């Protein structure tokens, strides 16, 4: 059986999602998407200018990709809702990554406001993917509110500090019924592979690509790592054995 990720009625083959905000040149985004075969790409509505006669970021996104606009810049639920509606009106589709950030120092998301925005946007028919601080209870609330997936952070945006929230994300993976996508902070392909090994459904990366000397090559590397991690998860990684088997069996007395 083919291993596909289903979100909002769409079937997605590549579990490597790409962010576009930090690239030097919009055309690089196309090369990155080609090299990695990524199918889901996120673009900040705040950066999209439908009036512009200049090249638009949207022109560089291949047909096969699913455009997931994001509400970057929103400080509360009301702003996120407004931005999402603008995106839809501008013909950007109905996949929306909700990003509500009230903290410009660390760019950590505001789960409470995010939940409010999910309620409204899911009701309006959006496919809602919330960026969130990893938390099981909040993730459940998000699902109840209508989230099509949840996107916990691996570590703060742009930090490249890796998959530091593994313990909590692992619990979310076990308990949450919608896809769990690790978003933000992943700095190296090995870390992306780790996310996938523990059962995350996908990984979203931007800074690790844009800050690399060769973003296209790095995108390829991430794509392979995500695939490898996924295969390992499906193959079933044996539980780590912490010590050698005891020489005298603990249940030997039963014989």
């Amino acid at each position, binding site marked *: 059986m083919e291993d596909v990720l289903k979100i909002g009625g769409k079937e997605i083959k590549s579990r490597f999602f790409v962010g576009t*905000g*930090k*690239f*030097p*040149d*919009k055309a690089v985004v196309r090369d990155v998407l080609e090299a990695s075969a990524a199918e889901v790409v996120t673009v900040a*509505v*705040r*950066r*999209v*200018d439908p009036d*512009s*006669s*200049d090249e638009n970021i949207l022109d560089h996104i291949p047909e096969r990709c699913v455009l997931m606009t994001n509400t970057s*810049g929103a*400080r509360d639920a009301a702003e996120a809702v*407004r*931005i999402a509606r*603008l995106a839809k009106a501008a013909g950007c589709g109905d996949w929306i990554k909700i990003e509500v*950030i*009230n*903290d*410009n*120092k*660390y*760019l950590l998301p505001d789960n409470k406001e995010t939940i409010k925005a999910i309620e409204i946007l899911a009701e309006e028919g959006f496919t809602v993917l919330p960026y969130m601080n990893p938390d099981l209870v909040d993730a459940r609330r998000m699902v109840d509110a209508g989230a099509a997936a949840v996107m916990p952070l691996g570590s703060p945006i*742009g*930090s*490249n500090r890796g998959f530091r929230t593994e313990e909590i994300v692992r619990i979310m993976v076990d308990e949450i019924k919608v896809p769990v996508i690790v978003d933000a902070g992943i700095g190296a392909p090995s870390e992306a592979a780790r996310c996938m090994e523990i059962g995350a459904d996908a990984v979203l990366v*931007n*800074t690790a690509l*844009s*800050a690399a000397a060769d973003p296209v090559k790095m995108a390829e590397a991430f794509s392979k790592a995500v695939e490898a991690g996924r295969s390992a998860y499906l193959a079933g990684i044996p539980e780590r054995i912490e010590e050698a088997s005891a020489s005298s069996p603990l249940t030997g007395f039963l014989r």
Partner: protein
Amino acid sequence: MDTGFYKAYKKYDNASRAIFENIRPRDVARAISSRRLSTKDLVALLSTDAEPHLEEMARKARDITLRNFGKAVQLYTPLYVSNYCSNECVYCGFNSSGDVERKTLSLDEVREEAEFIASTGLKHVLLLTGGCRVEASVSYLKDCVKVLKEYFSSVSIEIYALEEDEYTALIDEGVDGLTIYQETYDEEVYGKVHLSGRKRDFRFRLDAPERAGIRGMRTINLGVLLGLAHWRRDVFMLALHAEYMQDKFPSAEISVSVPRIKPNAEGFAPKYAVTDANVVQMVLALRLFLPRLGVTLSTREDADFRENMLPLGITRMSAGSTTAVGGHTAADSNAAQFEISDKRDVREIMDMLSSKGYQPVLKDWVG
């Protein structure tokens, strides 16, 4: 009563002379290797002891900037709508005692300027006036903002300091950004260079960014005018002010500018020289101290210097600038507030950024 930032300001005002003297070379090394910098680390990076370490600081600053902001630089242009002024700031071309031709744009003229700027593709505009509350009243500015919002996603203001309710009035019309320079944080020098007018009130100006923050201003840009006082102490206070604003308003984007005084019609000569290396050092220190801080570089600096500064922490630049009222469309340009060094238009700045591996961001908000 000392409240707000003034309280923190007072604490350091007297001490700031002494703390620079207590820096040792090892303090600089520690500051550069710290993950989270203390106030003492900031002092170390602004001290003369840090001067031999600029390259090391630059490497770190570049990495931090790249991670936090990527290879993207946001562009905007200033739009002067009035140069009437009731303040006597000795360094300014619009000084009330100056003999320059005065003008306030009609709303039709504002629209002409807006149309021209919008045709360059820019979506961020900075609305500027002199310090005259009568000629460029809040109600006139509200009307200007109404016009500008038809053309731009983001309208910021750089005008005289307002009361809280006045900030709300402009925010309600669609203003999302405030730029206000303290000019100098040296209260004594401040009194000497602001001879008369409402701007003489140091505290009223110092608290203006906070008043705007309380009313929900999205982006707030602070600044000092380099050359009026000792730059190390001024930038130290600027950094503390920015930190104070970041802490108090976590949802606002705080940024700073560190322009050097340029000659104007008054022929004012800055008292303190600030070299290129000094500007580099302060931008690096600001970046290391506040990794998420926006840093704006205006066209007061020349083209070469602006390009070289790009990777060191710059996040926002002006383009196609004019400091004359109606200067974007007027055939015979009237008096300029100060001289522009980098005269390139928006297209040229965009091409320059692209050639340097940076994405010019013309639109970064959905207002």
